[in-house]
């Protein structure tokens, strides 16, 4: 079987991830920070250590600015709903996933003014276009770092610079980029970074987070949910302390432990080496598919300017049929359709049919890519 659906969720996970998850439930299974006995404290330590590793990974000094959530969508909702008020202006790109678009469309109904800056057909974004879209009432700019449809990278540092000139905050959706390439929050000028644990960070599903840059005033962000935090229990009001303000309810201990192990696996191997490996696979895949008659490949076709996500269509064939045949006849697992990103498909010209998306992972080999290309060649011809 060849698994090329790592943009949906990475698979397989490193064995250390599975082991960390079972270990933590066996030896540290208390409720973190709630009870004060040894199992509760052991659980709190695992969560705090992972918080520290995430902060270090993204270049943030204060680990308490790492807020654990269920996934990137939850983190994006926390940031958008926590910051935007009726009358505020928000700017986004036309390559966004529905994790960004749906909360924004909903906020628009509540009086938030939304501008969508169009991207080019290869998904690329011109920061000059952003300069024309922001104004003195712009509160927030929210952009994906890497498109989940074609992998195209958006120029985050340039976007941050334009955003800050307008006096706004930048929220980056790093669902596809975190773990795929180095991200340094202060160097890139990111104010808020939403990530998920189960994609390139190699953790399990059900854990993600919002990282608030060291210099961003967290008091301007309202919590999405309120409840028990194990702290200031005498009060019936939500505490303002970080991270408790945003983390009510019992944390996903096993998920966080797994994410910590995934992160360690990545840092041990080296993010630059991983990026190099993925670029090579991506180039082989793009070259192989581009050489096939009837096959159209979307995006920049340049692995330097994208993460390893490749979308294609075949003239005269439904993407759903291609996906099914690749699975049944060649054990090649892909994802077909709109990938929860109708705006992105409109931008690249594949709406409403969608594309077949191939996303190699860290465990994908050059041979896997060759076999996948041969399989697609066969399916495209018959």
């Amino acid at each position, binding site marked *: 079987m060849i698994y090329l659906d790592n943009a949906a969720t990475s698979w397989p996970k490193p064995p250390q991830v599975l082991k960390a998850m079972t270990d933590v439930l066996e030896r540290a299974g208390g409720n*973190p*920070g*709630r*009870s*004060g*006995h040894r199992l*509760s*404290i052991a659980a*709190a*330590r695992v*969560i*705090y250590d992972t*918080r520290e590793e995430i902060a270090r990974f993204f270049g943030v000094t204060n*680990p*308490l600015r790492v807020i654990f959530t269920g996934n990137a969508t939850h983190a994006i909702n926390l940031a958008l709903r926590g910051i935007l008020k009726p009358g505020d202006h928000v700017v986004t790109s036309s390559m966004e996933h529905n994790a960004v678009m749906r909360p924004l469309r909903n906020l628009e109904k509540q009086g938030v003014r939304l501008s969508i800056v169009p991207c080019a057909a290869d998904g690329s974004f011109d920061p000059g276009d952003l300069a024309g879209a922001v104004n003195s009432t712009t509160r927030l700019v929210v952009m994906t770092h890497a498109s989940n449809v074609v992998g195209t990278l958006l120029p985050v540092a340039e976007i941050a610079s334009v955003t800050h000139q307008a006096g706004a905050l930048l929220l980056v959706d790093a669902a596809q980029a975190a773990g795929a390439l180095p991200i340094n929050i202060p160097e890139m000028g990111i104010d808020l970074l939403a990530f998920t644990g189960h994609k390139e960070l190699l953790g399990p599903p059900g854990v993600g987070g919002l990282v608030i840059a060291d210099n961003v005033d967290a008091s301007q962000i309202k919590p999405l949910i309120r409840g028990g*935090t*194990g*702290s*200031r*229990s*005498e009060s019936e009001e939500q*505490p303002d*302390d*970080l*991270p*408790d303000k945003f983390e009510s309810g019992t944390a996903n201990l096993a998920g966080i432990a797994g994410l910590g192990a995934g992160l360690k696996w990545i840092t041990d191997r080296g993010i630059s080496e991983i990026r190099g490996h993925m670029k090579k696979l991506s180039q082989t895949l793009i070259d192989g598919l581009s050489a096939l008659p009837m096959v159209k490949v979307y995006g920049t076709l340049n692995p330097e300017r994208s993460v390893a996500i490749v979308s294609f269509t075949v003239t005269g064939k439904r993407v759903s049929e291609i996906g099914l045949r690749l699975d049944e006849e060649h054990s090649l697992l892909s994802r077909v359709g709109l990938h929860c990103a109708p705006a992105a498909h409109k931008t690249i010209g594949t709406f409403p049919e969608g594309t077949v998306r191939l996303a190699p992972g860290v465990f994908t080999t050059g041979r896997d890519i060759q076999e996948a290309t041969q399989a697609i060649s066969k399916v495209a011809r018959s």
Partner: protein
Amino acid sequence: MTQYGVALFHTTSAVMRAEKLLIKGGYVIKLIPTPRQFSSDCGIALRFDWNHCEQVKSELDEAKVEFDSIKFLDTKPI
């Protein structure tokens, strides 16, 4: 008999920071359920040798670990 002090915090994460810091500094400490006579801010408190009270306080201050207060742990029965 060792006399103890306890450092009280607002959040579990702050306790975790303090624990790491003080272990690194070579202090003998233990995390304990917060003694009820002090505060219910956070379920966990950090117990240390009362002789090190000033050093513990300055270590936490220097590392900017937010804490609520430091108390002498009186173990007399209520």
